[in-house]
């Protein structure tokens, strides 16, 4: 029996899927195919990051984006990351540092084989969108040396240190885009910048963003038709970054939204790899990235207990559209600047606490959980204070577990399961007490 479960988890294709998931699979397969043939097709390749990405701009030059974090997480899911990390440690990277970086560098050292088993093309441009995480800067300094001679465009996104975006910060961003990023893209792609094309793409961005927000906010419904963390990162979010600004992304999100509406109409719960969740027992808000090396096992602990994530912060590293931001065709450069500054990891700690508090309240959560990632300072430093604040402000039970993104050495199934089981017991008790009080 145990063997069967493990086998099932190792076979992602066996998971139960909806039409949108197939659509997503097709889009991603096509994208990786394009990437593997980029050189033959004369397409230029840009390596860049998810938070604060300039996808529309890259696509407007007909270049192809590659996101190293996505490669790293895919390597984690394919059980390759452990080997890659060791490879990077062999050349001097410390055990203590961000494992995404080590996984990515290890992957390159091992031939740069992407998620589909095909070799990824080397970059023609390194677009260092330094947003919300200091490690990005160090990561690309290392890539720059691994790919000598490849031009680097730096886009430094100022931190929302005061919880607001100031004019000087926006101007700083626009100037960098205008005077460094765009000229480098023109030089690499051999094309002139076409602002009208960029604006048109942003019309599609905004449409997809509207739909994404509707989908994410459907989790306010009880029972929720979606899981906003596991499913959020598995099939709701990934399309967004690479395809934002294309008609395909709009079609995908429209399809997904139709499915979600249908689920709401029928009062159905979220889809899990083992089918539909029958009973929603606990509604949770979660902070922090997931673990990728044991993603299915990790998810299963939750759905086996009827615990669903109704809102997550991690799905906002690609943008906080639910706070109202939309790419604006009328102001393409300014909206790129504001987009970058608004991503979750670029928000200051008080803003992060406010957002989580809002999620707990608006999504009627029973609890707040942190998955603290060993090697991710951007998320983890300060999380214990966030936890205290949320407990004080909302009164919901808070839970805390630890794992890592892609280093399998730091995922302890038994430990996490034990902790979560105790936490769920605590939530159960509180529910009973609240129900008794309501009767009185």
């Amino acid at each position: 029996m145990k063997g069967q479960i493990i086998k099932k988890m190792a076979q992602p294709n066996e998971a139960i899927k909806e039409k949108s998931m197939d659509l997503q699979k097709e889009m991603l397969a096509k994208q990786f195919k394009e990437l593997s043939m980029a050189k033959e097709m004369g397409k230029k390749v840009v390596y860049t990051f998810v938070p604060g990405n300039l996808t529309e701009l890259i696509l407007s030059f007909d270049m192809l984006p590659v996101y190293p974090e996505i490669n790293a997480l895919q390597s984690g899911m394919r059980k390759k990351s452990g080997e890659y990390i060791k490879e990077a440690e062999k050349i001097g990277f410390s055990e203590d540092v961000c494992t995404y970086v080590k996984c990515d560098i290890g992957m390159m050292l091992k031939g740069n084989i992407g998620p589909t088993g095909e070799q990824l093309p080397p970059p023609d441009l390194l677009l260092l969108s330094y947003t919300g995480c200091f490690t990005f800067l160090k990561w690309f300094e290392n890539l720059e040396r691994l790919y000598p001679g490849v031009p680097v465009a730096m886009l430094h996104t100022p931190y929302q240190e005061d919880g607001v975006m100031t004019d000087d910060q926006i101007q700083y961003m626009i100037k960098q885009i205008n005077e460094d990023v765009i000229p480098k893209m023109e030089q690499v792609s051999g094309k002139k910048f076409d602002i009208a094309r960029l604006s048109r793409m942003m019309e599609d961005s905004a449409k997809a963003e509207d739909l994404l927000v509707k989908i994410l906010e459907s989790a306010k419904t009880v029972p929720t038709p979606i899981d906003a963390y596991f499913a959020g990162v598995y099939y709701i979010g990934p399309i967004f970054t690479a395809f934002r600004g294309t008609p395909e992304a709009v079609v995908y999100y429209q399809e997904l939204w139709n499915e979600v509406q249908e689920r709401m109409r029928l009062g159905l719960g979220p889809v899990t790899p083992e089918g539909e969740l029958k009973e929603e027992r606990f509604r949770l808000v979660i902070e922090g990235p997931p673990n990728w090396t044991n993603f299915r096992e990790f998810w299963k602990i939750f759905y086996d207990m009827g615990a669903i994530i109704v809102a997550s912060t991690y799905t906002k590293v690609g943008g906080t559209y639910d706070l109202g931001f939309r790419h604006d065709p009328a102001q393409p450069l300014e909206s790129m600047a504001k987009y970058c500054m608004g991503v979750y990891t670029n928000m200051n700690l008080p803003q992060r606490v406010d957002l989580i508090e809002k999620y707990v309240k608006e999504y009627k959560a029973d609890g707040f959980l942190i998955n603290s990632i060993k090697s991710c300072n951007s998320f983890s430093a300060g999380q214990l204070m966030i936890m205290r604040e949320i407990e004080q402000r909302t009164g919901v039970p808070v839970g805390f577990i630890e794992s890592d993104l892609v280093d399998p050495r730091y995922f302890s199934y038994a430990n996490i399961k034990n902790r979560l089981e105790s936490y769920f017991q605590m939530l159960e008790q509180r529910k009973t007490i609240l129900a008794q009080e309501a009767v009185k």
Partner: protein
Amino acid sequence: MRSMEEIIKWCEEIAFDLNFLHAKKWKAEDKSRVLVGYLPIYIPREIIHAANGLAVGIMGAGDRKQIIKGDAYYQSYICHLPRGIIEMALDKNLNDFDGFLFPAICDCVRNLSGMFKLSKKGQFQRYFDYPQNFDPKIGGVFYMEEIKKVLSDIHKINGVEVTPEKLNHSIGLYNKNRQLIEAIYNVRQEFPWRLSAVDTYHILRAGLCMTVEEHNDILAQVLKFIQVEQGEPMDNIRVVISGSFCEQPPIGMLKSIEMAGCYIVDDDFMQGSRWIIGDVADNTADPINALMEAYLEKSTFASCVYDVGNPKGKRLVKQARERNADGVVFCAASFCDPALLDRPEMQKECDAAGLPHINFQFHENTGQFKVIKEQAGTFSDSIKLWA
């Protein structure tokens, strides 16, 4: 006139007084004075001086304070520095500070700025963003805005107007400070036995807790003392220590390295005090612009700065060569992503240049140095053997 021993002892006391009494006493003498605590690594202290303030370096609790509460704020896999600072904040060591600056060196310090905001410590808590774009019209303009925000924070407290004259005067004093520090390092390069690395460290660190005028006096006296021969040269090797120090080295570790037969002829412990290489123009009509130009063009190499076109590895090798060093000791704080992520490349450059190196990790309250001493001793022996 105090003796060298007295000066060093006094500097050690000031440097490690976690209540910052010397700085607080200075503030108490005049109502318009403000104390601005800043975290490692660098801020242009000149602007605070010109606004009748004292920028006080908060370099962590080191091994001088038992951390109890601070540990409850940080997971075990986060470096030590911020937990010591939280402990200090909770123990009221940082009361009387008017505001705090958190330079953009890493995500831990960045998020710590938010923790100070949430707990409303001081009248302002500002994350001071360094530009990572080095075009004066782009990154430079942004940097000047960052400076103006700090000036406005202080102005709200004491109402002091910073004129170009005042700022030029402050810049001149800090130029002097850097000149004296470099002069001391230059003497030590030739005669490292005259002033140990530990004593040098105490003298420099004390400078973060007193006025620049007072520190300049001390530095001038020290410089005078070490012009004269003292102590005995030993058969030691000469090393540069590199760790992009934010979290500070435990004194025991420095002593162990020295006792293992290494003269530390250069280091980046107090990077902030030596950040600008050379002088900042102190006679312009727009001194904020002068500070900006110095930042963009004269900054030293550090893990928190994106080093385009002038990579840190090469700069480290150059520094070691200029100091006539036999090797490099890499020494980064545990869990310090910025320093640790720079290490492989720097090591590679040392290898390429045939510069021997060893590597340690520490945290500020490490208590055991036996292994470090042994490794440093072996390193020193091997260099002597092959030299």
